């Protein structure tokens, strides 16, 4: 495992990129920061700028407008950067796959490392997803 990945798994700072979600996954992500789940005890926190982030949490379906922005966000993030798709929309566009404003899946735009399905996934599921992500990175 190289030194960069080792540093990354120690304490993952996440940036929350909402691509036309319904808000619910986003609220559940914020819920992770509040007393019941409190992911800061696991070394994770929300980064205010994508340039400080180790991981992108992507929610929702990319529409024609957010598609370009998500690509830009990924390019701006320092590498190595991991991408976590949160919610059924981010995993497979849910019931919006027939929409005229839904041109592609998230994994067509950025490489996704972990998929966390659910509408919305419970905060516990998100923590479990990130735990699996760390294991995956450590085995690299």
């Amino acid at each position, binding site marked *: 495992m190289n030194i960069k990945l080792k540093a990354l798994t120690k304490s993952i700072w996440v940036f929350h990129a*909402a691509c*036309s*979600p*319904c*808000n619910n996954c986003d609220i559940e992500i914020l819920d992770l920061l509040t007393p019941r789940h409190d992911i800061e005890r696991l070394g994770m926190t929300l980064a205010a700028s994508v340039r400080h982030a180790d991981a992108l949490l992507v929610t929702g379906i990319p529409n*024609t407008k957010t598609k370009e*922005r998500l690509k830009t966000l990924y390019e701006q993030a320092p590498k190595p950067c991991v991408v976590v798709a949160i919610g059924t929309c981010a995993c497979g566009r849910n019931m*919006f796959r027939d929409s005229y404003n839904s041109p592609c899946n998230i994994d067509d735009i950025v490489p996704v490392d972990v998929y966390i399905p659910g509408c919305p996934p419970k905060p516990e599921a998100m923590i479990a997803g990130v735990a699996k992500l760390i294991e995956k990175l450590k085995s690299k």
Partner: protein
Amino acid sequence: MSHKIVVPIGPYHPLQEEPELFRLYVEGEKVVDLDIVIGYNHRGIEELSEHKHFDQVPFLVERICGICSTSHPFAYVNAVEDLAGIQVPERALYIRTIIAEMERIHSHLLWLGLAGHFIGYNTVWMWAWKYREPVLNVFEMISGNRNHYAMMKVGGVRRDIKNEDIPALKKAMDELVPALDLFRGAVVDDPVIQARLKGIGILTKEQCVDWCVEGPTARASGLNIDVRKDEPYGAYDRVDWNVIVHEDGDIFAKTLVRILELYESVSIIRQCLDKMPCGEIDANVKDIPPGEGIGRVEAPRGECFHYVRSDGTNRPTRHKVRAPSYMNVASNKVAAVGGTISDAAITLAAVDPCYCCTERTAVLDRGTDKKIMNGWDLIRLSQEKTERMRGK
């Protein structure tokens, strides 16, 4: 216009969890103009709903917005029941009312927490979200999901509230009241919160009428409008409650209206649980006749309006959605202009904007090459102001 400086906020910024772009035009510290660019959330829901049959649409409109995820299906089923003239069983009406009011509690607590965060009171944020969790637990107990409850159905509700669950529900409400007292005390008595929120972002009664503002935002400016009272639906005409109205129109009044509405919601839920009759929960609707109908619901943010037209087949031929934030967000143009940049963060958030609800039209961005700065600066400015005032 060259002397003006543009402060772009967004589209990705920690100010709000949804993508949207504000352009603040400033002269020194003063905000002189404001542009709002939305369209980052448009998913074509109205068009999608015309390809689903009447019983599938509630699941779709539920996903318009995750915070008001029962207001939209509620308004939709009201519209279809208006269209077909369906008589909904009494018990189903009470269950709908209980779910809608619990949603108001969790939505207002959510806003309260975020508002506390914006002015640098992270303690309020943590408290509010801590006391929101028991409400989500109750939702999980009733419907199996913390959000997106899927309770609404044309002609009734999808799941019953079991009689043996009612004591747990009542207990959750009883435990919520001391927490609400705590918030009321914290907001009303704190001199710094008063200094930050009083006289900031004022919307007068006339401006509210001009900009068609709705919900708690309008009620904080002295407009007595509430769909639950004006055109009762569900079981709101069978219980006793008050519309909370304040005259000041500033952010402090908006906060107070929301806190006091929480007490009314708790009282409505208690009365509904006591009065709820036994019986059927579903009218077993078979066919939807041709025609058109409207449904109005008081969502946590204001009036939510749905229009449905049917041609006798099993799909709506037209489904129109109008969400409250559509009007409320535009009122930022009067509320934020004239204030300082450090007050802009809380002023823009004061209407409890919900962009997911609002995005019914696609707004095309011509792609300006202006540099997008970080909205974090704005929150930091706002939090520093509170720190300075605390220090004094």
